[in-house]
């Protein structure tokens, strides 16, 4: 149950691929070194993006045969940094480099009540937890939220397995989730585990805090790849170093600065540790804070940002094709 970052790399054969929802593909891997996977665990994968090897993380949806097979499920993101495109290009028989299952999102056994909340592809981190809690006979609710039915992987299976503990909220069928009601309805000492887009998670975090619930009982995992706004290109400048970089919509600001040769410090690259924070000197546009390192108060000030996940966007939604990109002027350590 302890968190683990022991990234021993191994080979894994791709033994099956199939689509399980719109733009969502299930990939079955056979790792060289089988090991059982616990709920909440993910694997890191070496993805080939623009000819380079880059690390991407995917939750283990299930691990049959005691980890002899690992199932991951990948959403092909519209503004992908390239990882999901690569994963969708995989075919049976190919060989990948992966880590053993790593734990950053452990499910604690023994809570009196659980709520599991998945938004969209976030179901990949949550499905295994639901299966375990069902096996243990725990008190749990599984809440699955998405824009449309076509975008929901494993919907029918989860409904069949979890019965009346399962509820789906589908925006385009008029069933949007009422976050206030969800949080208001949890019994004392409930632990809520969630994975999904930042708007959903922020709404839950705020409501949880407003109600004075124990903040350590709100558990979440973020890979920092969903923001308040769609990713768009922007410009970042560092006057002291004479650097100006164009950040493409498919890359992070950290990656762009590294590409320009700026000596950047970073670690988690998912908006948790704060090591990549930079000072914002001036801003034309607005910052899309995608991290969980800053408090709301700090985010509102826009005085600094975590450049591994957070981005800049133009101040107003682009109405004409002539909209100028956002420009960030920063100082780095």
């Amino acid at each position, binding site marked *: 149950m302890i968190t683990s970052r022991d990234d021993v790399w191994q080979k894994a054969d791709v033994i099956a691929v199939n689509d399980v929802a719109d733009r969502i593909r299930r990939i079955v891997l056979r790792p060289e070194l089988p090991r059982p996977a616990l709920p909440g665990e993910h694997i890191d994968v070496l993805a080939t993006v623009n000819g380079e090897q880059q690390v991407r993380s995917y939750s283990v949806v299930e691990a049959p045969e005691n980890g002899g097979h690992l199932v991951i499920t990948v959403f092909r993101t519209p503004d992908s940094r390239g990882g999901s495109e690569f994963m969708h290009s995989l075919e049976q028989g190919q060989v990948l480099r992966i880590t053993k299952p790593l734990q*950053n999102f452990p499910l604690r056994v023994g809570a009196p009540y659980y709520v599991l909340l998945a938004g969209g592809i976030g179901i990949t981190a949550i499905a295994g937890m639901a299966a375990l809690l069902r096996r243990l006979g725990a008190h749990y609710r599984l809440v699955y939220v998405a824009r449309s039915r076509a975008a929901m992987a494993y919907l029918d299976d989860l409904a069949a397995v979890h019965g009346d503990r399962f509820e789906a909220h589908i925006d385009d069928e008029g069933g949007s989730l009422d976050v206030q009601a969800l949080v208001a309805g949890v019994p004392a000492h409930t632990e809520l585990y969630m994975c999904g887009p930042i708007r959903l998670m922020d709404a839950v975090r705020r409501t949880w805090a407003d109600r004075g619930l124990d903040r350590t009982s709100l558990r979440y995992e973020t890979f920092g790849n969903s923001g308040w706004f769609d990713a768009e290109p922007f410009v970042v400048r560092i006057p002291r170093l004479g650097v100006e970089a164009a950040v493409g919509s498919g890359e992070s600001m950290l990656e762009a600065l590294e590409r320009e040769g700026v000596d950047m410090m970073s670690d988690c690259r998912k908006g948790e540790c704060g090591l990549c924070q930079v000072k914002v000197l001036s801003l034309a546009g607005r910052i899309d804070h995608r991290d*969980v390192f800053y408090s709301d108060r700090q985010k509102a000030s826009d005085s600094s940002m975590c450049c591994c996940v957070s981005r800049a966007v133009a101040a107003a939604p682009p109405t004409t094709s002539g909209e100028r990109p956002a420009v960030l002027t920063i100082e780095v350590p």
Partner: protein
Amino acid sequence: MTTSMTTSTTTSTTNSTTAKLLSYPLDAWYPTAWDHEITSKGIISRTIAGRPLALYRTQDGHPVALADACWHRLAPLSQGKLVGRDEIQCPYHGLRYNAAGRCTAMPAQETLNPSATVASYPVSERYRYVWVWLGDPTLADPALLPDMHQLESDEWAGDGETIHAPCNYQLVLDNLMDLTHEEFVHSSSIGQEELSESEFEVTHDENTVTVTRWMRNIDAPPFWLKNMRDKFPGFEGKVDRWQIIHYTFPSTICIDVGVAEAGTGAPGGDRSRGVNGYVMNTISPETDRSCHYFWAFMRNYRLESQLITTQLRNGVHGVFGEDEAMLQAQQAAIDANPDHEFYNLNIDMGGMWVRRLLERALEAEGRSIAAPAPAASSKA
């Protein structure tokens, strides 16, 4: 210290009948401490099955076992302090954790890193011990605790101590499963030649092993003569002596021992003309080459006498000190002779069944059976 990672990556074809030192299952309850050792006043550090633990008690009295390494830089939490309501504060940078192992405060930031946790292991308090489950927490069923009811029963009195034994835990199990050694190791107290002359019976099931030995119409050795005279002042004459060794997976051995006036029916179940004790032993591996050996001696006569309780505890303390010296010497000889194997004898039958049960449990966990040889261990 050798971690389980080292153990699990050791490739070995050794089986339990040839492994001198066994690895330890993790899907099992192990005693961490006597109940009185764990308090809400401070934190104690103890390594169980290769996992350093920080042990304390909540203000409501529930024992807590956290991994003794801060999430941040692995500083031992046991060197920190208890703060707030049931929280533990890292001695290095002040990160705080609650009893569930969740970080509740981080320095220099207004939020908490969502992955900041330390393991909080399932614990159970029973039979005067606090037990911990280090393996898959979903399997931690308190119904799997071994039966040591004599430690909590109104019908039994006694007390015990802890030995920090400098040997692999399996050597202690071997020692307790075969008591012929009493003749040689404990010659002045409980040893007598009939021990190695008498026959014994062994039975087992999936979880237990029992070794039964009766010695009929013999002289009582000094320890037992004293006990008989505590209950029957002035007792003289021959006795029937019994030793019924009850092992329960993974490492609890409760030994039903006693003597009764010879020919009064003790082998048939009438122990009324005798004295009966239970030697309660439960052992936690610490590392591959050390263990915590918790023992107590319980009796079912003269329950009111603290004098007898103290005399028995001190007497057994002396006897077990002789075992400890032998176990330490044996471990040193094993490490000094890595190429020499164990040979097995008839008297090892009980211990061999214990090894078989442990081997099966280790296989079920996908772990190697043998503890690493000294060269593979990072232990000094």
